[in-house]
Every structure is written in C-alpha cells, then in structure tokens.
C-alpha cells in the first residue's frame, strides 16, 4: 500500500504526459520535425541559465518567466522562417538551434557554480520526485492548452497533414505560431519533470508505433494514448521492482517497441511481396 502511495504522483504525471505528448507527437511526426522538442528544451535551459546569471533565485517565478521568454522568441523565429526559405530543410534549422543553444549553455556553465550539473539534470530528469502539487499544476496547464487545441483542431490538423488550404499565408503563420507556442509551453513544463529523453520518447515512440498501422487521425491519437500510458506505467513498476532508473526504463521499453514494430512491418511486407 505504501508503495502505491509513493508511486502515485509519478504514475499520474506520466499518464498526463503521455496524453498531451502523444497528441503533440502525432503533429510533430506528420510535420517531420522530429527533434523540435530537444531544441526547445535546450533553449529553455539556456533561458534558465541566463536568468540565474541575471540574478533570479532558483525556482523563482522570474526565472521561469525568463525561460519561457527565450523559448517563445526562438520558437517565433522558427515559425517565421518556415515559409521564407525552404532551400534548407527545417530539420537542419532545428539542429542548428539546438547546437547553438547547447554551445552557449556550455559557455555560460563555466560562469555559474554547478552549471554543468544543471546541464546533466536537463538530460536525465527524475520523475520519482514528482509531488501532488506538480501534478495539479500540470493538469491545469495541460487542460488549458488542450482546450485551445480542441478549439482550433481543424486548423492545426490541416497544417500538419498538409491538406489543401484556402486561407492566406499570414493566417497560416498565425496558427503555426499559436501551435508552436503552446507546444513550447508544454515542453518547458515537462522537461524538468521527466528529462529530455523521456519527453522525446513519449512524443515520438507511441506516434510511430500507431502510424505504422493506421492513417486515421482519431485512431492515431487514441492508440498513442493507450501505448504511451501503458508503457509509462509498466516502465515505472518494472523499474521499481528491478531497482533501475525509471525514466530510462520507460524510454527503453517504448523505444524498443517502436523499432521492433517497424522492423516487423517492413520484413513482413517484404516476404509477402516476393
């Protein structure tokens, strides 16, 4: 019973994360901008470090706002460059943003005590430290963002799925901006909880596993939610009983599932067609 009480917040938060990230993951996968969250997380971390340098205290509101500010500025630039020049693929821009963000963070890390520790913390995270307060705040924030997305669902879908679009380029840009900003807010909130890799896997792996089998948007969403939540809860229980780290356990579980399913689909079709 004690175990369950102790694992309560991590389990609830991992299901919450699976739902919101499973949704965004399908958008990200369809847009082919796989590494966007890692870049956003890096920029957010850079913002936090700059906040620390300017003199905001740890875990203060000012610090969190600095982080959001940087994220939104960079994401705005990213959304705007989308139509300006398609010569260089967007994924390359994402890589460059990530690279510059991490490079700057490493330079600043030299100036902050415990700076390099901070970089490692962004990478690993620890979901076991989640409190009920974190759960409530996240629930509130994610519901708000979910509501925005339910309201504009047609718009966002048609951009992601590249359907023929009547509205002007400026309108599309506006919706794109809204999409990326809400996404950025979720990532900035989620990465300190689970670490970059857990967030990345919850975004991409369930979406990949389902999209192998169906093109239907609704089925993709529901499938991602089921796979993501089941995988996270199993991972947490497994890591608890085997005494290994929880985040990595979930990542390996969901990641291997996606790769194995993909291989299975490819090889099965190959033998059928020959």
């Amino acid at each position: 019973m004690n175990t369950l009480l102790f694992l309560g917040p991590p389990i609830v938060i991992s299901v919450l994360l699976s739902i919101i990230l499973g949704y965004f993951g399908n958008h990200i996968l369809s847009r082919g901008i796989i590494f966007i969250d890692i870049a956003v997380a890096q920029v957010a971390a850079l913002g936090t470090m700059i906040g620390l340098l300017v003199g905001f205290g740890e875990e203060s509101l000012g610090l969190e706002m600095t982080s959001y500010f940087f994220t939104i500025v960079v994401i705005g630039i990213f959304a705007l460059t989308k139509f300006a020049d398609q010569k260089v693929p967007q994924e390359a821009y994402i890589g460059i943003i990530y690279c510059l963000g991490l490079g700057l963070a490493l330079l600043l890390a030299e100036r902050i005590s415990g700076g390099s520790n901070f970089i490692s913390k962004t990478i690993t995270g620890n979901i076991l430290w989640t409190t009920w307060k974190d759960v409530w705040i996240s629930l509130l924030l994610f519901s708000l963002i979910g509501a925005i997305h339910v309201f504009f669902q047609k718009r966002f879908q048609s951009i992601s799925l590249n359907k023929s679009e009547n509205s002007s380029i400026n309108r599309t840009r506006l919706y794109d901006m809204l999409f990326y900003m809400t996404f950025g807010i979720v990532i900035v909130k989620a990465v300190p909880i689970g670490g970059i890799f857990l967030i990345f896997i919850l975004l991409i792996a369930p979406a990949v596993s389902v999209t192998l089998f169906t093109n239907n948007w609704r089925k993709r969403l529901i499938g991602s939610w089921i796979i993501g939540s089941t995988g996270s809860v199993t991972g947490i229980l497994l890591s608890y009983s085997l005494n290994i780290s929880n985040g990595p356990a979930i990542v390996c579980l969901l990641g291997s599932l996606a790769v194995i399913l993909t291989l299975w689909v490819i090889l099965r079709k190959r033998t059928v067609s020959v």
Partner: protein
Amino acid sequence: MEIISFMIAPLAATLILGGILVYFGIHVIKREIVFIDIALAQIAALGGTLAIVLWPETINGGGHEEGHHLIEYLFSLLFTTLAAGLFSLLKSKKIRIPLEALIGISYAVATTAMVIILDKGAGSDVHIHDMLTGAILWVGWDKVLRLAGMVLIVALFHWVFRKNMMNLTDNYDNSSYKSKRKNWWDFLFYFTFGLVIVEAVQVGGILTVFAFLIIPASTTLLFFSTWRARILAGLLLTVILTIPALWVSWTWDLPASPVLILFLGIILIISGLVYQIKKKVT
C-alpha cells in the same frame, strides 16, 4: 612562437574534421537525417560501455591498457555495424514513418540504456558532459594521426565510389530510382560514416562534430548547388574560421568547442542575411 607549436595539433584536427564532415553533412542534409551522427556516436559509445561492464577486470586489473582499449573499440565497431544495418533496413517505402523518427528513438534508447548499464549513477554525469564537449585544444598527435588515417581510408572509398554514393543520396526519396544493391550501398554509407564519427567524437566531442556536420553544409547550400562547389566552399569556410576561433578560445581561456560553434553560427547568420539581400536585389 609557443602558441603556434601548441596550436598545430588542434588546428590539424579541426581541419580534418571540417573537411570530411562538410562532405557527409551534404549527404545528411539531402537525406534529412540531420541527427544521425549523434545517434551513431551514442550507439558506438553504448558498445564501448558494454565492453567495460562485461570485462571489468581488463580495466581494474591494471597493466593491460591496450587490451582493454581493443575490446572497447571492437565492441564500438560491432555496434556501429549493427546500427548501419538497422538504418539501411529501416528506410523503406512500405512505411510512412520518416527515418529521422527512428534515428531519434535509437538515440534515446542508446543513451538511456547506457545510463541503466552504468547506473548506480556515479560518474555518468561527468561522462555525458565530456562526450558532449570533448577537448580539442588538448588533443594529442596520436589521436590526430588515427583520425587522419581513418578519414583518408573513408574518403578514398567515397571518392572511388562517388557515383554510387551521390546518386543514392540525390535520389533518396525518389521511389522510381532503382539501383543494383541499393541497400548494400546504403549500409556502406552508414558504416563508413560511423567509422569517421567514432574517431571524430574522440577528438572533438559530439557537439563540435555535429556543428561541423550541419552548419557549413547548410551555409554553402544558400549559394551553391553542386557537390564540388559546396565541398570546396565548406572547406574554405572551415579554414578561415578555425584559426581565429582557436585563438580566441586559447587567449580568453574558453572551451574550444562552444567557441567554434558560435563562430560557425555567426557565419551562418551573416550568410543568411546576405542571401536575403541578394534575393531582394535581383
């Protein structure tokens, strides 16, 4: 005078890295698999880590430094080969999943699997940090020569089979393009790339390698379209930028790899502006 003799090894290392990576960078950007190098580096590192865990006596037993390094290297090589096979298999018309997604998943699994293996935490933070930044200013001639040897072999291979390699990448998403032993060439592409990455990360760290892979190739893409022009322009860019960057890093005692990345980034931004202005004028 002292600074010059001190700088020759890092300078040589950076130039070799810059040269081979701009070439692979063009491949990688055309294929839109930008993050492949991080994934390959991480998978190779996972192999090395596994070797250390499986035969800890070779490290702790002392004396057999060479033997330990050999096993570690062979395991890295084995894992790179497996990854090359996996990636050439996963690119398939039969699925709608972009290869980049599967590359990302492999990267995440390899990194976290290493955390699980090394676990009980101690030292793994430091290890991650070291792998990211590297220490190109302190590189020794032995590593530079190893890198040069490997780059020479791989470059020669790609030069001899340049038609196959370039056609494969130029037609990467073209489903009507048929070539004999297409998967086999694809495998060789990833395998040779992996060989270079393993050596390159040892010298420069993941971040520097990543920056040299994509930033020069993206910058030259703005102005040139042929392979030859882009490779030459990328090389020139590397030469011009490396000397002041290393000098700044040495003089102000800053880590070399972030400084190199910032220089590359600044040049990209300037090139982007020049490109926009040029487009407006014409």
